[in-house]
């Protein structure tokens, strides 16, 4: 009768992180009679976008249920905008992260709720410099110097740990290189970073020439042609195998532009 023990309701995750009721609901679609939609699109499919801007000074990278991530990113966007409206400044990152953590934690404690099935990396800048937070469905939101989440991320984390001492003195370009190299570590055999499957999110602090003060370099997602030079720079072993059918994306790299005079990533966790 039941396929397993984890499909009685839609608030129970299976040990594999699946919500069976949601998957069964997909089966209901198959009961419907056929309909066809068609469009002359340039490409039939592309990789899932995983980097999103939250505000001028904050961006996120997601791993997990995309639709849950949308809810959280919407929440963060609203909170950040509200803070700007009330106080006239960018929302401090630790405030945003703890708000997010509290929201997610509630779902782990109340009957009839389910945790968000998504992990986030929150990168941003505020008065205290650059920040990177890791967010987990448990409600944990902790500041990191460098981190990777998602499938096969252990390899990336190992790379980051091995190089952790270098990040503080890195400029923007070097930090992106480290990010891509870490990402490369997590790839499966025969896979390469390409302009199609890689994007890089950057938010930083730059020196304003007119006032001499640092200001925010708005969060920007670089993909396609924008990341070509970076990818070329990290691809030491060139092979001409260009077909790819797995989605790999770069996690957010918090980086400060070199113009800010050596104030790159803040190491204060």
């Amino acid at each position, binding site marked *: 009768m039941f396929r397993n023990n984890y499909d009685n309701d839609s608030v129970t995750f299976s040990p594999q992180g699946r919500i069976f009721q949601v998957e069964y609901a997909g089966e209901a679609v198959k009961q419907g009679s056929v309909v066809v939609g068609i469009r002359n699109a340039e490409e039939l499919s592309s990789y899932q976008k995983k980097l999103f801007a939250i505000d001028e000074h904050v961006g996120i990278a997601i791993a997990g249920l995309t639709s849950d991530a949308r809810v959280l990113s919407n929440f963060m966007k609203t909170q950040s905008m509200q803070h700007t*409206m*009330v*106080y*006239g*400044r960018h929302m*401090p990152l*630790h*405030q945003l992260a703890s708000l997010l953590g509290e929201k997610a934690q509630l779902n782990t404690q109340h009957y009839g709720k389910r945790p968000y099935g998504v992990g986030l990396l929150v990168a941003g800048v*505020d*008065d*205290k410099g650059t920040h990177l937070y890791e967010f987990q469905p448990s409600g944990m939101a902790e500041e990191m110097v460098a981190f990777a989440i998602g499938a096969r991320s252990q390899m990336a984390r190992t790379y980051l740990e091995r190089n952790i001492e270098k990040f503080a003195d890195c400029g923007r370009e070097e930090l992106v290189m480290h990010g891509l190299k870490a990402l490369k570590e997590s790839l499966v055999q025969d896979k390469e970073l390409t302009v199609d499957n890689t994007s890089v999110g950057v938010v930083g602090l730059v020196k304003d020439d007119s*006032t001499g*003060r640092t200001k925010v370099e708005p969060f920007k997602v670089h993909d396609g042609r924008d990341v070509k030079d970076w990818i070329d720079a990290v691809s030491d072993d060139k092979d001409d195998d260009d077909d790819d059918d797995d989605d790999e994306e770069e996690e957010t790299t918090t980086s400060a532009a070199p113009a800010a005079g050596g104030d790159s990533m803040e190491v204060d966790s």
Partner: protein
Amino acid sequence: MDHRPQNWGRPRDDIYGGYDVSYMAPNAEPNTHTQSPVVTGTSVVALKYKDGVIMAADNLASYGSLARFPSVQRLMPFADTSVLGFSGDVSDMQYISRHLTSLSIDEAYGVQDPLNAANLHRYLSKLLYSRRSKFDPLWNNILIAGFDSDDKPFLASADLLGTTYSSPSLASGYGSMLAQPIMRKYASTEEDAAKLTKEQAIKIVKECMKVLFYRDARSLDKYSLAVVTRKSGEEGGGGVQITQEKLEGMSWKFADRIKGYGTQTV
């Protein structure tokens, strides 16, 4: 047949009597909002100078025309970087003051830089505007002095309607008619204000307090004077200093010659 639809399906008035509308009234009294201030403070004056802002307000809280409380501080420091000057209702001032104290304590727990005067002004104006939009205003005109995020001297006002404005010199209440013209004579533009020294600015503000005491019947000769200086500036310590002052060098000789009021023999 009663053709009025609102009477259909109701007990007939001619048999049961009219409906007692008092039953429909919400229980007890309607909720009340401040419709006018009760115990009030009069003008606050403030002037920017090159390294900060000077602000002054007398120590009187009036009950109508009665000089009710003669030693009430109407200037409030915030986070040791900003000063607020309140005119209008004193109980609302105390409410805001309590609220801001808890806000500044919360802020101090964080790792973030505390709210600067510009952030504070923004926050207060949102508070005042939201209360006026609920028809439950906080009856104050507040001047906020300190520094903005570019570390430049900051002076702005927020009133009970949520109206906000900024200027090299500001004054609330009678001060806007009596003190503002005096201050504008010395600092009509930001550039002029940026040339004033602290001593000059204090002298101008003291002069304004004197004029106000001469003419404003709800004022007092004892007042508070706040000096907000840039923390990293030449003063070294800087921050907020509030001192108690008493008006000096007044001359009331002209009072003799005023005719037409009170008991006069000639």
